[in-house]
């Protein structure tokens, strides 16, 4: 019983990491119809911000708060300068963002000098309930994910800006006709998605060592999650991330870990092949 609880906790904490990363990816994919290949590198930048803040003596918490802001601003600049040229053609966007990601990743790799840096958990240790130990930091990640999810939902459902975003998603042309600047909204959305990636990076870096490849391991899984959930909605990618997260962290308990990853990909691809419109899209159309 205790074993089952701790496995479930592991799955839940990994799934929240996935959801946090995929939320930004999915928001951008749904709004602008582009898949941001540099998303993994935004996660890396978030993690790197925490590392910089820690080594500059500003402390971990400052880094964790600063990460979404820094990465969000960077995302905004990138959207204004580069990404906005790509909205018309998803494949070109893919190549362009891949190039941006490559530049960021390899620059950080050069700055880190190829080393792995460990970042300590800001609140270490564990608490136990009924003889089962729960890592405090993983619990915080789960709580933060739930908070971010409900915050985003509240923003979309109950604020004027959320209304505009939903409008621009449903029908960009009509939204423009109503005087909503979709171009500004796209900039904001991209910055928001980047900020989420930065936050995710800052939160997960104590769990994984900081290396240039910290983001890339989530990227392919992230894309599959978005496609699994369906592009064009906000809840779809989150559901997809949940599914992929549970599979990716649960399967290694059932099959040899070497086979687990490819199996997750295969299952996800087969589902997408059968339902190209995703979970939610299927219900809507």
């Amino acid at each position, binding site marked *: 019983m205790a074993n089952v609880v701790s496995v479930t906790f592991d799955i839940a904490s990994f799934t929240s990491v996935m959801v946090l990363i995929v939320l930004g990816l999915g928001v951008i994919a749904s709004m602008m119809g582009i*898949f941001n290949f540099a998303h993994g590198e935004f996660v890396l930048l978030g993690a790197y911000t925490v590392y910089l803040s820690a080594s500059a003596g500003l402390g971990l918490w400052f880094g964790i708060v600063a990460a979404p802001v820094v990465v969000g601003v960077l995302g905004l600049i990138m959207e204004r300068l*580069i990404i906005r*040229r*790509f909205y018309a053609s*998803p*494949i*070109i966007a*893919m*190549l*362009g963002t*891949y*190039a*941006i*990601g*490559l*530049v960021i*990743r*390899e*620059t950080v790799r*050069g700055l880190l000098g190829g080393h792995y840096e460990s970042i300590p958990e800001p609140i270490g240790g564990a608490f136990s309930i009924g003889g089962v130990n729960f890592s405090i930091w993983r619990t915080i990640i789960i709580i933060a994910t739930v908070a971010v999810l409900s915050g985003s939902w509240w923003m979309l459902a109950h604020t004027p800006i959320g209304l505009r975003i939903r409008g621009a998603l449903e029908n960009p042309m009509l939204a423009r006709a109503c005087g909503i600047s979709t171009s500004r909204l796209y900039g904001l959305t991209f910055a928001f998605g980047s900020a989420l990636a930065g936050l995710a990076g800052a939160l997960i870096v104590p769990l994984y060592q900081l290396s240039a490849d910290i983001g890339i391991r989530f990227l*392919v899984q992230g*894309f*599959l999650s978005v*496609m699994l959930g369906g592009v064009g909605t906000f809840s779809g990618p989150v559901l997809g991330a949940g599914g992929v997260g549970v599979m990716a962290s649960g399967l290694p308990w059932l099959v040899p*870990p*070497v*086979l687990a*990853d*490819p199996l997750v*990909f*295969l299952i996800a*691809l087969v589902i*997408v*092949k059968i339902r*190209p419109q995703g979970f939610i899209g299927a219900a809507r159309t």
Partner: protein
Amino acid sequence: MLRATKLQGGGRRAFRALPAVELLVFAALVAAPFLLSERLDLITLITNMMILSIFAISFDMCWGFSGIMSFGQALFFGVSGYAIALVGRDLGFSAIWGVLPLAMATGLLLAALLAAFLLLGRKVPSVIFVAFGTLTGSYAAERLVSGWQYVGAGNGLSSIKLLQLGSFEFVEGFEFYTLAFLSLLAIYLVCRFIVRSQLGLVLAGIRQNEERLAFLGYRVQLFKAVIFSFAGMAAGLSGALYSYHQGFIGPANMGPSLSTTAVIYCLLGGAGTLIGPVIGTVAIEALSYGLSDIDAIRHFWPVILGLVLLVIVMFQPTGLLGLVVSNRERIGSYGARGRGRARV
């Protein structure tokens, strides 16, 4: 009859830059071993370039000519490389008449299977789905291989049995250069024939308006699958030559990073031109060779690659060849002379 019928006469014949570039490149490749007979390192470098050019052309057949974004072209390259390495290790077999067809068959079969899954079926797949499908295939294969002890796990397979012709063994140098050159020439000519045949005409139609072609009764996805499989075969040949030439094949040779390198080769040279990928490969590899001596830059080589790709997609989508070849010639360069005007 595959070849389109020639139209007689008809108007001014504009200067055609593409054949000139093609001739120039192949003439340079023929001349290189005679001019550089003292520099074995450069011969080896150019051999490598030609092998990778085959790989880049295979990607061009997918993206430049049939609009399939194959983000995992290295899968066929790597798996074929492993196949011949294993045949050499476990069966002690490396005769050229056996292993090269084996490598091509491996690439062809694998690509056909992937194409059947990704492209065929009741629902028309989106470009994005195909791109992610190929990317995921290549990523999954890399992960799988780097954890599999039988194929050397993360270390890959080294000291691969040399390629043999009778009792002759191919080592780095002129003989391998000749082999790579002939392979490149053969693949190039076949590709050139395909894109200028009636099949190429269908592909041109698919590029322009996939829906219309479908309404005209063409099974668009089937055509794409055929080209994708053919490209897999070419990539397989390239992978086998590569691992014989390097004497090594590793998980990185089938991963997304090599796959995207093929994209960069092709886009830098100019997609949809066949000779463009060769030029792109030569440019990138020459740059990499030239910069590898400078320590400070070598570490940031991938950054340079990324910047090159970014600049191309933002400012020069037609690649280097776009500077010398007009759009009209680049797009309309199939079929017999004079036919270019028929398409608008």
